[in-house]
């Protein structure tokens, strides 16, 4: 019988090693059931309190669940929601008592909805409707005949979507941190409290005030390297000729020398004004978050010399200083992500861009381009001077066509007279 006792002891020893937690978790799980989610808003815009007409979207893009409803009162109730991780966004436009039109946006990214969490409050912020917008962004690069990648043909196009002349002089352009879409979001000092976005590298359009006007319907292309990329020495497979770009990010690389395009002015990189040793200004081929902003005339913004305009991501020990950019400065921002599955990895506030856009791949020679606004008859909406009015709801998911062959000055948008490359 001693052997029998030994067997019993062996069995008890083995049993004690089994994870009871896992068995308990398995046994306590209940069958999933649809939820009714209640959404309320808190509008942080002076002289504007009504949520009437705002549209709420509850989206789980990875799993393909999407619900949409319009506010008719103080809150909106969305039924039959499948438990999961969602991006809840509330957006629309409204005018304050002075008649100024605002984009009203707010969201809750990575919002878990399940039994215990069915009431969600969204803080809404307002951003003035911008006259300058990103019209097209080509970030993913192309594949050369030999080798794997070519990324020097990236470009960004800025368009005057208003009915008045706009001056690019002094307008800043930045790509925002985190550089790549990620579900591991940075941690910022609590005092920042949604008042800022964070620039990794910042550039500025040159000019003294009125050197670089854009008439309604005109656009300016900012190239990473303003050359004809289709040339044999670069990449014959590249879809773009950037030799007529209005601006370029000249990084003083002898192998890719300065081109006729006007050089952007480097402003900020990791706490310094110097460009650093990078041979080019490359934003992620997976897609980044891009912003253009203008500092009000009565304010000063100098993140190199004013340390209060620098911030560190507290979730990492890396000593990389980002530039604090007040959200109220932002004219337009567009967030691009790797592919659709990264919708829940949105990294910038909804007030800047309520959605995301993507070409879904890398080195695929495709771009994202802003859609034109259409009349009820399907005609392109134009201003009195013939300028196209592009769609701008501050939601790049809605506003951008995905996966188009990149084309500077698409739709024949005007080339400013000061472009000397023609």
């Amino acid at each position: 019988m001693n052997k029998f006792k030994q067997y019993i002891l062996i069995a008890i020893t083995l049993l004690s090693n089994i994870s009871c937690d896992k068995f308990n978790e398995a046994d306590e799980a209940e069958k999933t059931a649809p939820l009714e989610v209640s959404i309320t808003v808190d509008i942080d815009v002076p002289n504007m309190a009504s949520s009437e007409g705002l549209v709420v979207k509850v989206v789980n893009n990875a799993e393909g669940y999407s619900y949409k409803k319009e506010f008719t009162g103080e809150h909106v109730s969305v039924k039959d929601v499948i438990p999961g991780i969602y991006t809840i966004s509330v957006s629309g436009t409204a005018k304050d008592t002075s008649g100024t039109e605002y984009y009203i946006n707010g969201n809750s990214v990575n919002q878990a909805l399940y039994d215990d969490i069915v009431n969600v409050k969204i803080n809404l912020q307002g951003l003035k409707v911008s006259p300058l917008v990103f019209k097209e962004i080509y970030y993913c690069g192309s594949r050369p005949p030999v080798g794997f990648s070519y990324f020097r043909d990236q470009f960004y196009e800025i368009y005057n979507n208003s009915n008045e002349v706009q001056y690019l002089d002094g307008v800043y352009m930045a790509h925002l941190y985190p550089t790549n879409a990620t579900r591991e979001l940075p941690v910022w000092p609590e005092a920042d409290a949604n008042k800022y976005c964070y620039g990794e590298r910042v550039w500025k359009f040159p000019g003294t005030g009125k050197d670089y006007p854009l008439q309604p319907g005109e656009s300016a292309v900012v190239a990473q390297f303003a050359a004809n990329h289709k040339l044999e020495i670069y990449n014959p497979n590249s879809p773009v000729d950037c030799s007529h770009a209005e601006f370029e990010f000249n990084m003083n690389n002898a192998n890719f020398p300065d081109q006729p395009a006007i050089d952007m002015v480097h402003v900020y990189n990791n706490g310094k004004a110097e460009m650093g040793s990078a041979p080019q200004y490359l934003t992620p081929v997976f897609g980044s978050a891009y912003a253009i902003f203008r500092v009000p005339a009565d304010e000063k913004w100098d993140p190199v010399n004013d340390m209060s305009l620098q911030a560190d991501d507290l979730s990492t020990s890396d000593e990389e200083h980002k530039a604090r950019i007040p959200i109220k400065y932002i004219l337009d921002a567009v967030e691009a992500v790797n592919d659709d599955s990264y919708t829940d990895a949105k990294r910038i506030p909804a007030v800047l861009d309520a959605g995301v856009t993507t070409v879904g791949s890398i080195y695929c020679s495709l771009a994202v381009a802003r859609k034109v606004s259409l009349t009820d008859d399907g005609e392109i909406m134009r201003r009195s001077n013939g300028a196209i009015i592009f769609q701008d709801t501050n939601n790049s998911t809605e506003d951008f066509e995905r996966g188009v062959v990149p084309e500077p000055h698409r739709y024949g948008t005007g080339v400013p007279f000061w472009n000397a490359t023609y």
Partner: protein
Amino acid sequence: MNIIRILRCVAVFAFILSSKISDAQLCTSASVDMQKAQYLWFDTKNAAGIAHDSMTNYSNVKVGYDVEKGDFKRPQQGEADKNLSVKSEGFINLSKVMVWGKFTFRHENVEDASYNASITDPFRGMPYYVIDNYSDSKWRNQFYELQARMSVPVGNKIAVGLSGDYKASLAAKQRDPSVDTRFYTLRVIPSVTFDFNDHHRIGGHFNYTSVKEDSRMDNVYYYLYQFYWTHYGLGMSTQDYGYAGPTTNYIGDLLGGGLQYQFETKAWKVLMEAEYEKYVESAEQTYETPCKMFLVNDHTAKVKLSAIHSSDKFILVTKASYLYRHIDGIQYINQRDNTEAQQGWIDLHHDIRSTYDTRSVSFDYSIMRRRGQEYNWGIDASVNYVGYDDEYILPKSTKDSKNLFVEVASKKNFVVGEKKSRRLLVALKGGIRNAMEGGYNYGGTHKDYPAVAMEMSDEAFLTSDAWHIGGGVNYSQQLRESKKTTVFFNVAFDHHKSKAETFSKRNFTSCTLGFNF
């Protein structure tokens, strides 16, 4: 481990087991088959029970090569599947202790498999795995299995036993998205039997099994990004894109037990068994910052009745069983802790998203005409019903099938010569599969994802009427007349033909060279 080392291990294993075998014992293929057919307890997990099976010492070594080819298959299987295997098995009665052991090594080359991109066996009851959209994936797999059973009589009425299995496998998908996945199982089953008297006996066993699969996806051509889809069940999946798929850590624990009752007379042996197993397996992504992704809660209940009637002329074996298996597929809702605390992934909620039911009823009947220690001829008949009933709860998708399998086989053991016990065993078999009903309705999103096509293809297979016909020839003879060591060579062929237009056929061919000691 190379093949030579494996063969050496097998030879040593076989030699140890063969050292106690009587020279009076016949070792033809038919004699070994007939012995095994009479082992009722051996067919259970109760190792203690082998003391009551009147097992005779035997051992064998086999080297086999088999090939499956054809499109009548489940989609994750290869169009061609080639296996080289080495097996050794033996039993020794050392009077105070009875020991059985088996070692198996198998190298598998799978050609043109579809969808599965991450785990060794996509049919093992874990619906959570990563798939791709290629139909030409090659896999190179290796399987090692060591099994042992020991029974020790304690006094006149009690026998205690211990069974242990260890399985290890390595499966490597050759095209991107590639995977190197390693699967391990360790099973320990203590058991006991108690004799009330010469006619009545009860037994019981307790089963603990530990399972682990470590799946690491990584592209060989890392600069060519690949799409892949994480499958949650019944076609529901999410899409990802990158230079490497996820690393998934599957860990499972099984607890189970069974009770047996045996009634025995001179002519009859009847064994009834009831068995229940509960298996819980979790799937977590990455080791650095684990994220709980999936959990299966798998219950299996089985009852079985086996009866053997032996007379001077015939052996009749009847077996009937019923199996019910229910799996809950549990999904987690996780959030990354994006605060300064950085606690990694936080498990907020989990609930049952899918269920999988299997019901199986089987009835097997076998008759063998004795001729000394072997059989002269035999006929086997079996009827099996298998029903699957699966559901993804929200959004609702269903997949079910009901199949009836009927098979008849016959075998004739020709005496080619008494000198060296030369025998030619010829077997013929045929059967039909009646796919009574079934259907797949996908109510989820992303209908264009390959997971949906995979389930549709699988359902097409599961609802296809089919028939099969096959046969085999086994030649055996003693190596020397003075020694009972018998060499045998077996070839077998089975042709499966689908009646559905979607499929054509699948052929199974095998050849085995072996020695019975």
